[in-house]
């Protein structure tokens, strides 16, 4: 057993965890935060993406113990009260989700991409950088639109200019 302390969406959390428990299940089962989903067993689908110390990670392949001392952000922590994050709003506006299962990881991946990708975001770059997230419902078309729209809102229109 390990004792971990971390912040989750800004709130300090301390718990005993099994050494072999993954962060995704620590969130879902220990803390009851079921917004983060698990869709595969080979670290490929991306449903479990959260942000760990400000970068996107696949929480199914990070031990809770490895996250000790870190800041975790999940989809539940994106909105400010009733006010949605621009990425969440863009997903709704552009119909970038259908069943919603991949959506939490998709949104967190998009937030990280918009936040940290140096340089302009084009449809090609979005598609390349998002290849670690699978969606079976949407065919990706609307998700690309949503990410570009949110990027424009967050970064400003010049972010879409081709360089």
């Amino acid at each position, binding site marked *: 057993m390990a004792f971990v302390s971390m912040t989750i969406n800004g709130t300090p959390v301390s718990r005993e965890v099994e050494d072999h428990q993954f962060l995704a299940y620590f969130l*879902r*089962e220990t803390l*009851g*935060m*079921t*917004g*983060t*989903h*698990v*869709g*595969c*067993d*080979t670290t*490929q*689908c991306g*449903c479990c993406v959260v942000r760990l110390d400000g970068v996107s990670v696949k929480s199914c392949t990070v031990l809770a113990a490895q996250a000790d001392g870190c800041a975790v952000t*999940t*989809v*539940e922590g*994106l*909105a400010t009260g009733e006010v*949605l994050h621009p990425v*969440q709003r863009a*997903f*709704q*506006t552009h*119909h970038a*989700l*259908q*069943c*919603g*299962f*991949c*959506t*939490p990881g998709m*949104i967190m991946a998009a937030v990280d991409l918009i936040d940290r990708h140096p340089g302009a975001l084009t*449809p090609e770059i*979005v*598609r*390349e950088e*998002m*290849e670690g*997230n*699978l*969606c*079976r*419902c*949407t*065919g*990706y*078309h*609307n*998700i*690309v639109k949503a990410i570009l729209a949110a990027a424009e809102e967050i970064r400003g229109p010049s972010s879409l200019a081709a360089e």
Partner: protein
Amino acid sequence: MLSERTFKAVGKPLERKEDRRLITGKGRFSDDFSLPGQVWAAMVRSPYPHARIVSIDAAEALALPGVLGVFTGADCLRDGLKPIPHNPVPSTRFDVKLTGRDGASVFIGPHRLLPADKARHVGEAVAMVVADTRDQARAAADAVMVDYEELPWVADTSAAAEPDAPPVWDELPDNVLVDSSFGDAEGTAAAFARARHVVSMKVHIGRVTGVPLEPRAALGSYDAATGRYTLHAGSGGAVRQKRELAEVLGEPPESLRVLSFDVGGNFGTRNRAYVEFGLVLWASKKLGRPVKFRAERSESFLTDYQGRDLVTEVSLALDETGRFLAMRASNLSNVGARCVSLSPLSKGSGLITGSYDIPFATLRSWAVFSNTMPTQAYRSSGRPEVTFAIERLIDKAARELGFDRLALRRRNLVAPDRFPYLNAVGSTYDSGEYEANMDRILALADWQGAEQRRAEARARGKLMGLGFANYVESSIGTPKERADIIVTPDERVEVVIGTQPAGQGHETSFAQVTADLLGVPFEAVTITLGDTDVVSAGGGTHSGRSMRHAATVLALASEDLIAKAQRFAAHLSGTAAEAIHFEDGLFRVEGSNRSLSWFDLARHAEDPGLPEDLRGGLRVRRDNEMHTPVFPNGACVCEIEIDPDTGGLEITRYSTVDDVGRCINPLIVHGQTHGGIAQGVGQALWEHCTIDETSGQPLSGSFMDYGMPRFDNMPSFKTQIVEVLSPTNPFGVKAGGEGGTTPAPAVIMSAIEDALSSFGAPHIDMPATPVKIWTAIQAGRAAGAGQAGAAG
């Protein structure tokens, strides 16, 4: 019944109501539910494709920490558990009637929760372990000692139908459970005899799996005080699964409550109950604890109900002008180790002639058991296969006989004045403008500019290919649907209905329909689904049935409710019902400027002293039964570029025109088309449930082996919706959920053939992975058919 001018919400691309909870992490998927004291189940699965279960030794497993029980097929029999009543033979009025040989009834191979006799496919669950934690259950499952006697097996579809194939079921030694023939044999033979040309093709459209991103999960519990079971499990229809699982348990249906709330993708994989759902319910009663099961993704790849797997042989007879005279087809479906659904074979059978006016056809529809995971409906069940057959056959005819592939199609399309059109295998197409679809798609896809783009691609060392396909498909589905509409005093309209969305947006589109029927704000309407204690009846979601059935039963329910409300308004205002006029959501008293809103009425709906026929609240329940199928249709063009040095393929353009009948929400329908395209393209290029020929072992057990449509291998789309209303239902709805998939495998393979035409049109089996494309190019070069870098 409906006038266009009343549509305020219908037809609008309104944002979805269900999104809020899904984008904030508040979705309610099966694994999100837990109950105090719950324990976990894990399955012991057969490593062999076919093996007798000689004995099961659970001693070592039972001794492991946390283990509460080990259950086997013998235990199931002892407790009187029945097989799952899958009811796989489609039996609605317009379903093609499949039978066994010589009209015999179909032997389906009973599906017990755990078999006592044999395992009939790799991965079949032969025992269940229950333990305190999931890890403990899985560790204990590894410790269960099953003594198997390996038996001869067969996996390949054609091989399973051979006379010497090992039988999967002792009761059916030749494995052929269905063998029916349709069409006019004499007329077809005569047409072939006088034909100038005959073109033939045989192709195996392989096995794929649905891969909903939510692995299946189930939480079963039993309340000894009430004698009721509760099941949280994503499904394709909670009402159906309640009925089926209650029958398995030998309990009355009212004793089981099924809750399917948010479902992480279905595509057909959840249309039939899984053994784990029955097992956790049964175990929860035996152990007095809630029992939970969650599949690993590898378990999903192995034991989700799979899709497609059809061997089709088709021949087309043409005259000298290219007119289609007749068609012959033999469609052999691989149902797997038992028959769970014959929907793919049946649906495909009715559509073998496609969008074309082919006066004569004969069809043999047959099905075979094999030692593989059972198959059932998967996105556009049966239709991509037959669309592939007819469209690729026409491409072959054009190529071999020197016709232009578009002109040959136009020559033979069902003309607009022929609807309702009865095809040569007995399907009546409702409505459509097939040639107009072709005109639209050619414009949308900039067909004219393609040769220029081909030359540009060649200059970059790439082989461009241009693919074309028409399609017509059918939506039948369970014929019955029920809707409750309740107008509440707090200004809400609640609809309870028995469909089961997994992303199709019913909470939104059904609200749009209801809002316009009743003249209430879209925001005021809520749709309740998925809890069988609330949803008393309904057909679930499959086969594109939901919008059509929902809109129709809602239209009928609204009529009833408006009539009741008129009587109620009359009662409240002391006039006769005839003096109340309903318009734009208001009940106006004739000869006055008094009008009452729905919510005005609802506030009085529980008043004491109401006449009997007005009591019970401002609500109505309506059942509807509708058998007549509808026929969505359209056309599709794609462009690809192949890198001849690597076999790598990129889709550069993909355009579709889809006649969905009335489109309730274009945002949702375009989204359905996009996702449907991806699944069809996936089958053409990457997806295959591969089985090792020597061992019978499935090889595509994870995303490491099973290629998927991804952000970086899918193009963006140009999708156009066409609305040729169907005369079969009040809103004129056809269906919009599956037309993206139906032509996709055909259009991709058509494009690949076009790209490689200078190499002699080599045959490539789907999925057309880079190694296969490259290998075909080498073979073509060796045969001297092409020059490096050139294209047709």
